[in-house]
């Protein structure tokens, strides 16, 4: 049974160009969703186990889960 895929935020450390890192991640099983060139960040999907492996790739500064964001506590007031 395949592990469930999730979205991951890959922060690059600048040691290699972003397109090259995207290619390397693809080779390591990642599906690149978005390339944010101005930030040096890739949004990819894959399993948690794969994410562990990506951390060891040259050029990767951090691998973080894509988490929820909102306007404030439920109920809105204050917002």
């Amino acid at each position, binding site marked *: 049974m395949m592990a469930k895929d999730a979205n991951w935020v890959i922060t690059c450390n600048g040691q290699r160009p972003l397109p090259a890192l995207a290619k390397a991640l693809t080779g390591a099983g990642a599906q690149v969703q978005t390339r944010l060139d101005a930030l040096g960040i890739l949004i990819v999907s894959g399993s948690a186990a794969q994410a562990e492996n990506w951390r060891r790739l040259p050029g990767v500064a951090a691998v973080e889960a894509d988490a929820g964001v*909102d*306007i*404030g506590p439920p109920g809105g007031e204050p917002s």
Partner: protein
Amino acid sequence: MASKKPSRPAAPAPAPRPAAAATAAASGIDALLLAALARNDDSLQTGRYLVTFKDGALDEGLQAMKAQHLRMADARDFSDQAMAVEDVGDADAVVFPEIGVALVGGDAAMSRGISASAELASDSAIEVIEPEYFVFADGAVDDYLRGFLRATETIARDLGQTGGDADQDEIDAKVLGHTWGLARCKVPASSRSGAGIRLAVLDTGMDLGHPDYAGRIIVSQSFVGQPVQDLHSHGTHCIGTACGPKAPAGATPRYGIAFGSRIYVGKVLSNSGSGSTASVLAGMNWAIANQCHVISMSLGSQAPVQAAYSAAGAAALAKGCLIVAAAGNDYGAPTGAPANSPTIFAVASLDPNLAPSNFSNQGKIEIAAPGRDVFSSVPRPTRHGTKSGTSMATPHVAGCAALWAQTSTGLRGSALWNKLLASARPLPYPASRVGRGLVQAP
């Protein structure tokens, strides 16, 4: 389904006829709101009609509707009659037998002469036909009056107690003209408008047709798979504080700071007010790629410092952009992400008496700004409303930052960051609550 009772008195004139597909019986609320905005309809009517049957006449009434070739969906066909209106496909009408009411789509009603003004025969099975109205969670008009009056009363008390803190600008704030927040930030006295400055607000979007922004240059982009049009209100409110007009129409007080700035609207939160790190980062990337000098983010989560946000903040500063973010509203919890990143400018909230708001997070705080009972723009038809939160404090800082950026081409990125700190008004509270103090306009 929207309630049959309006949340405010019904408009005397019937609403303009809506476009067909947008007001179908199965249309979602977002589609109905967008259609109403598109036809400039501020009557609060959705374009659909509610048919109430006489007691005991439901079956007769339904037979009459079927005789008019209306395709009917009946709640009795669903388990426990748990039927969401959006689940009825292409039905022309939806029946709620327990309450003896049918909802009829706009096009179906129009083609069969079903309207609130239709004459009903004395032996008709129908008791009454009424327009369906939107309902909203906020009592926005009441909120504005209550918030504005409370704020001016608080300032009056504060000035009376302190004696030496009054100046002409603060006294004028009591007599309308501008909000208490603008008064405290010394905005009315500033000769700056933010002209030539690009100010991005990453939030729930904006009401792009709001009359207060007619003639403004607005660039917009959605990153959440929904139109930029703000169906929540949070984004329009924050944009109002940061960039609202110098002289709104009528008796509306000034509520916006950088009235001459170019507005960049990045919809990174959905109409339900939520998003993800990915959508926020996409918006930040867009704003930086578009060289937005100031980027305002009234959003976040109670998460530790995220490397991605820190990298984004660093990229912004390197490119001469300043990202300002809300500390969060978890009643004294540590500053949330992204504001807790060292490269992002964190904003705490102040009450009208300049005390830290009790809901404002603390810890890593750069500056503080007005965040309690803040009056600003909200989507039509309400147009203006009052909200509280570090979300409201943040665009005060963004707006003032835009005014400072206008004063010198050298005030970009880190230089702008330092100028905001150096020009802040010190406050008698710990830096963990208010940072360097109250943001001030040039």
